[in-house]
């Protein structure tokens, strides 16, 4: 079945750790995609077994860490107030702790550009920026995103289309469009950190995304055009007379 959090009590510190899929080197699935690195303390608190850590760090300090962690009040399973900063606007929702950021955005906030496609961090269609870094919204719980700046494609385009969006339109970097907001978010982040990427770098930035219609060549072209790269239209329309005479 799809990967849904079970209805159990959840400790905030235990979440947000990369799960399951092999993360691409950069882009929304990468470890760097989580802008706050998982701290040693958070990691320890998330462990359900102490064997590994006991071996490496000594039982005493582990016991102290666990005691501290257990002293915190677990959240849930009932709904609780969650404050999210979405596209610059602070909004409060009542959410069960198991609700993902993607579900919170789509179902509670009415932000539908991040799409639910693979449900488990493989396709990139739910990509949003968290403090400017692309992340898979399906792999983060809403409560974890509190205090972070969440940007979706709706928040990019208040002053008309951005260069990335404009280039996606002009170069037809989309077909059905279901994957497009995700690609736009990752390319936006790429061009911010690297204003003049090579095609290799564009491909790498897109590597956490899937497009079933097969728009990749035009997406690459759009990204390069948005960065002021080479003009890319290379449509070869050959007339009958020329080709088949």
């Amino acid at each position: 079945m799809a990967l849904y959090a079970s209805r159990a009590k959840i400790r905030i510190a235990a979440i947000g750790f990369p799960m399951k899929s092999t993360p691409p080197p950069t882009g929304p699935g990468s470890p760097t995609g989580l802008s706050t690195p998982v701290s040693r303390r958070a990691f320890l608190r998330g462990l359900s077994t102490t064997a590994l850590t006991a071996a490496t760090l000594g039982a005493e300090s582990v016991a102290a860490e666990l005691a501290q962690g257990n002293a915190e009040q677990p959240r849930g399973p009932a709904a609780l107030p969650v404050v999210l900063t979405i596209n610059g606007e602070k909004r409060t929702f009542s959410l069960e702790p198991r609700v993902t950021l993607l579900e919170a955005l789509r179902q509670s906030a009415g932000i539908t550009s991040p799409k639910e496609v693979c449900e488990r961090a493989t396709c990139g269609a739910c990509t949003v920026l968290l403090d400017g870094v692309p992340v898979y919204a399906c792999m983060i719980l809403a409560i974890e995103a509190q205090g972070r700046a969440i940007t979706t494609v709706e928040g990019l385009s208040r002053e008309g289309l951005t260069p990335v969006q404009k280039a996606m339109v002009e170069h037809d970097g989309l077909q059905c469009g279901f994957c497009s907001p995700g690609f736009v978010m990752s390319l936006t982040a790429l061009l911010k950190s690297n204003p003049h990427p090579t095609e290799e770098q564009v491909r790498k930035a897109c590597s956490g995304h899937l497009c079933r219609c097969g728009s990749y060549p035009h997406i690459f072209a759009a990204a390069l055009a948005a960065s002021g790269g080479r003009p890319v239209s290379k449509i070869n329309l050959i007339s009958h007379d020329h080709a088949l005479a």
Partner: protein
Amino acid sequence: MPWPEKNRYLGKPTPRADAPAKVTGRAKYTADVVKPGMLFGAILRSKWPAAEVRAINLEKALAAPGIKAAITAQPVPFIVNYYGDELAAVAGTSRQAVLDALELIQVDARPRAFVTQELDAIKPDAPRVVPDSPNLGEGKARETGDVDAAFASSAGVIEGLYETQVELHHPLEPQGSAVLWDGDEMTAWSSTQGVHGVRTAFASSLEVPQNKIRVLCEYMGGGFGSKFMPGVQGILCARLAKAAGAPVKLMITRFEQALAVGNRPSSHQKIKLGADATGKLTAIQLESFGTPGHRSGASTGGGSGGAAFPAPYIYQAPATRIKQGSVAINAGQSCAFRAPGHPVASFGIESALDDLAVKLGVDPVAIRILNDPLEIRRREYQVGAERFGWKEKYRQPGSSSGPVKIGVGCAGSAWNSGMVRETQAEVQINSDGTVDVHCGIQDLGTGSRSVVQVVAAEMLGIDLALVTAHVGDTHFPPGPSSGGSRTTSSIAPAVYDACEKALAELKERSGIEDPRGANWKAACEKLAAFPVQGHGRWREGLADGGSKVAQGGVQFAEVEVDTETGFVKVRRVLVVQDCGQVVNSLTCESQINGGVIMGLGYALYEQRMMDRTTGVVLNPNFETYKLPGPADMPEIDILMIDQPERGVIGIGEPCTVPTASAIANAVANAIGVRVASLPITPDKVLAALGKVPGAGRQDTTALEIEQAFARLAAAPATTAREEIHA
């Protein structure tokens, strides 16, 4: 009046009209639809690959927090035939509540014996999937000429087994609907390839008059053949909404997509070809079977009902013997999948033809030009070979040096896109000069909205920005389902006709002889509060080429194969595609890119894997069912052959047909030995090279295959209707 020769928009690159909405999140898909009080729906699916369902108790689910409706999928008792068959459905106030409630449904079922592999299912003692009919349906048979004599007198004969996998559609937007009842009237937002067809299906399934149902699909996230009907999920959604007295949205999950909403049937093809010394085919023999899922039987040849496919594909011989069967297994049923049957047919025959060419020492391009009956394709091979640099690149199989071998291959596609003559369109010219075009078609991502806009702007002689195309609504004039690559060839002539009629009225009412271009504003101002409406129908002369003349396309591929890891990388694909009258060269190019990339997935990555013991699909997600990704992209070089005299034709399907075949031939050329089974994964490459033992084909399996073909030969034959696939 034919298409105009001097064009402002027609045939030029035009960014699609709805692209800004799609990149800003304004585009609302079915999955995004929200109505006040809308509930979430979800389906409980069978975990038994085969069972008699005797009782379903919904009480606990109905009593769960937030649950507003729970229904059984069918009147109990009933039979389930595959893991994932629908049992019941629940609607509730949150997804979490619904998922919790699904677990509370109690099902009393008696499991039955099942079989999930076609080689097992074809055995005499296999459990029957459908109790009153054998798993191997009747074989579709056809024979012309004296086949045995032709083989006996051939200069060269090859025989081989070529196999293709079950492929899953996996559109990114899942199948699903949102349904709102208002009294006895129903509105459905459906992710569909045919709003009018879905309305008809909803009406008959729910026994509701058609005029009480409206189906909407403004944006949809891909279909590829899997979204023509509401599906069980759509009907359950409508029933849940009725039962709950509230709107319900039911989108299925990725896991469910792998189980229950269609696939491309597999194939095992035993092909024998004979030719004279020049390579001219003298005899073709093809026996095949594959599985379309839990229903077998001889097929339509389209792949939407059975596992047969067009045969012989493209190439003809004086003596031909064909027999094709379908095998039922306990798995989800196939349905139309982009160019149904064609990529399957293409892989078999194009692989065999290359093997024959190698045996005879004939160049693969030359053997195709010699045997291909379609002039368009023969010329495309010449144009393509020159552009691709075939003469310089083609070497003897396996002759490139070093551990990474380079190879090239080619293959062709056949298609007849046809059109739907009943297609209609409505053009409304407003007094401010803007134009609304209404068409009951839908835009799957193929750019049909843009086609409507381009044709209207061209015919009215006005700026593109003045035209808005409205699609995806059963309140609009009837249009075809988007299948068979015929949306463009159906709608473009209808819009043309509507424009002509609207222009005639505008001319009459404004008194301006030619209201187009510079006169447009002045003419429209005279309309005041009464816009002009022109109702158009499909008409002759604008898209006839589709039905009268077969379409052709060819593709060339260059690959590198690492003989140490077995990894195949496609470097380049060249497409030479017959495009008729191109409407929008930009979206046309996008669609061809997409066809090639889907073909690349079929060639190298995609395959549904079924578990023998549990009957479950083992790779129901994108980690394990591999789709082509950004890193896999070759250079794709596209030559669109613009032939306005052929009228408007469709290219969505033909462009995906030959890709896998061309890649497979390139792999064989690279390593000097054929990997005759799709997808060409590293293990198969290494097995073909003799570097790993038995991974490709074990002796027991080879025996099973032989026995399966013997059973196919012994199965009763039905004579298929004559089909022309030249």
